[in-house]
């Protein structure tokens, strides 16, 4: 596998180096040819700064960026051979949508028939065939966004950068386009980086997701790994809908058991045999940990730890039950409609294989189920 993009120890400061706002902190990542990578995070996490540094619109304060094996962080955007789709208004106003999309191809002096055929293909993909002759000022925000996406995808570049490319589309169209765009990118073997704050989009499109927060890369892994083996408490709670339930717990070992004592005098009691030796050692040498459990993994059991139902919502295809539990709140998801009244007491069972344990201080993952993180 050839590496298309290599980011090495990159820092971004807005303002003077070391004194300005530290937007991206010591970021390193490698992206292979043909990969789709999503930069996922909330606003201000550094994902857009990262993308703009790759594109060449922002200076790299420290570190290096190499595109297709060549150092690129000192090159102007024109020399980097990357294509980019923009979130906002970025179409050239005096040109029609068709001319906008074909712009780069015309500059590359491709024959007219080829250009027309490529534009038609992209327009069909993005469902903008009927607005090709219109001007940007007369089409909606969502249509402008799709035209901008088309202008990027049609290009033959080393790297395609997509900055919130579907933020303004209606949910239905977004779902359809996600599939088509992924297919389009994969079919042509393009390499793409997608910036998004929508984890559904990241999960659906990306081969790997880079979760960012506070300018720091938290985890860079496949969607499945991120969900099953979050590297730290942030990733664990940020990715997943509804979010992971977290509680503080005190560890104590008795005979062949491991007890996780929760507030309000509750405790989770497990056989030591449920955990690998390394996990046992790691847990027992700590006093305080944070445990995490996905709402889908919480079970109800008559002999479970007691909790009081505070809300019960049927969402049409699943039930979200919120309960007061161990001095906090716990959400569990069930696939059937459940008759539970507010104030009713239920028993909670958390199976050891579904338990995520994090360090109380650093937030780094200690174990996922029976295995060490």
């Amino acid at each position: 596998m050839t590496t298309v993009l290599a980011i090495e120890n990159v820092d971004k400061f807005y303002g003077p180096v070391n004194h300005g706002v530290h937007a991206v902190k010591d970021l390193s990542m490698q992206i292979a040819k043909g990969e789709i990578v999503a930069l996922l995070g909330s606003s201000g996490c550094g994902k857009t700064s990262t993308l703009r540094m790759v594109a060449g619109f922002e200076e790299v304060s420290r570190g290096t960026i190499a595109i297709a094996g060549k150092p690129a962080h000192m090159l102007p955007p024109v020399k980097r051979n990357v294509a980019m789709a923009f979130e906002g208004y970025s179409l050239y106003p005096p040109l029609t949508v068709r001319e906008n999309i074909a712009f780069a191809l015309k500059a590359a002096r491709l024959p007219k028939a080829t250009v027309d055929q490529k534009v038609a293909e992209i327009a069909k993909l993005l469902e903008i065939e009927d607005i090709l002759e219109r001007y940007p000022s007369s089409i909606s925000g969502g249509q402008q966004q799709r035209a901008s996406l088309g202008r990027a995808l049609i290009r033959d570049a080393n790297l395609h950068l997509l900055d919130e490319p579907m933020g303004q589309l209606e949910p239905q169209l977004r779902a359809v386009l996600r599939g088509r765009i992924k297919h389009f990118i994969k079919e042509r073997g393009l390499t793409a980086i997608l910036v998004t704050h929508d984890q559904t989009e990241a999960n659906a499109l990306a081969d790997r997701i880079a979760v960012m927060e506070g300018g720091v890369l938290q985890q860079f892994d496949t969607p499945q790994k991120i969900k099953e083996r979050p590297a730290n408490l942030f990733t664990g709670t940020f990715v997943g809908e509804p979010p992971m339930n977290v509680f503080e717990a005190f560890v104590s070992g008795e005979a062949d058991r491991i007890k996780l004592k929760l507030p309000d005098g509750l405790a989770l009691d497990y056989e030591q045999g449920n955990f690998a030796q390394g996990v046992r050692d790691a847990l027992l040498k700590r006093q305080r940990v944070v445990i995490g459990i996905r709402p889908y993994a919480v079970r109800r059991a008559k002999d479970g730890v007691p909790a009081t139902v505070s809300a019960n919502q049927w969402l049409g295809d699943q039930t979200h039950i919120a309960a007061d539990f161990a001095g906090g709140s716990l959400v569990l998801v069930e696939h059937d409609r459940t008759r539970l009244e507010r104030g009713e007491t239920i028993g909670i069972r958390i199976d050891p294989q579904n338990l995520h344990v994090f360090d109380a201080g650093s937030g780094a993952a200690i174990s996922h189920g029976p295995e060490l993180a």
Partner: protein
Amino acid sequence: MEHTSVLERVLRGAALTLVVIFFMFPLFWIFLMSFQTNETILRIPPSLVFTPTLENYQALITGKLQTAAGSLDIAFMRNLWNSVFLSVTSVAVSLLLGVPAAYAFARHKFRGSEDIAFTLLSFRFAPPLLVLLPLTIYFQQLGLANTYFGLIWVYQLICLPLILWIVRGYFEDIPADIEYAYRIGGHSWFATFRKIALPLAGPGIAAAGLLAFIFAWNNFVFALVLASADKQPVTVGALAFVTASGIQYGQIAAAIVLSITPTLALALYAQRYLVEGLSLGAVKG
């Protein structure tokens, strides 16, 4: 707006007519005066009935002013040429310097950028007379007094801040992503400036240039102090009509008509750019 009553429309029409008469009457009267002799202008009561004469214009164009005290040379055509030359060159220089500067201020935040921009604007805060005394002394020492070069330089005080600040706003209104898209599409920043930023801000630049031209044309005090007879623009040159044998109202009126004609023509021609400039926001959709 479509459901206005007849009364409302009549009242609005009357109000508009009043405003137009109020502002246009002086111009109209001056236009009439320019075709009259001093005697008919000064008769009491004034009348709209007179025999039109072209001798005011004739005097201005030939440069020979016939007064009761004899013939007087006036340099009106020379003044008019000075006005055109000074204003056009000043605005051209200002555009050349101000538009790239405005782009830099709009697009790049560099150290002290706001301070520099504000300093340039502050040229317009100081009363011209305050600046003039030291300026006159410096200009005499530098040998710039009474030269076109010096005058154009001083006119930058009028034109440059105006163009810089107006055009900067227009550049800021262009979504930066349009330029980014063009740059990533394989073009240098200079090509982006020329092909994307300049055309999109075009109406704004035209509007700013026009305003700067009018301000430069109407300037009086800089030229009064720093220019002698052969470099004077019309605003200063008009003083020559206050002669020993009285004020030449007819010639003054003709001079005014001639001197507002270029700006008026320019304003009428550029009106559509001004309107376009104001509706630039439509780009944002």
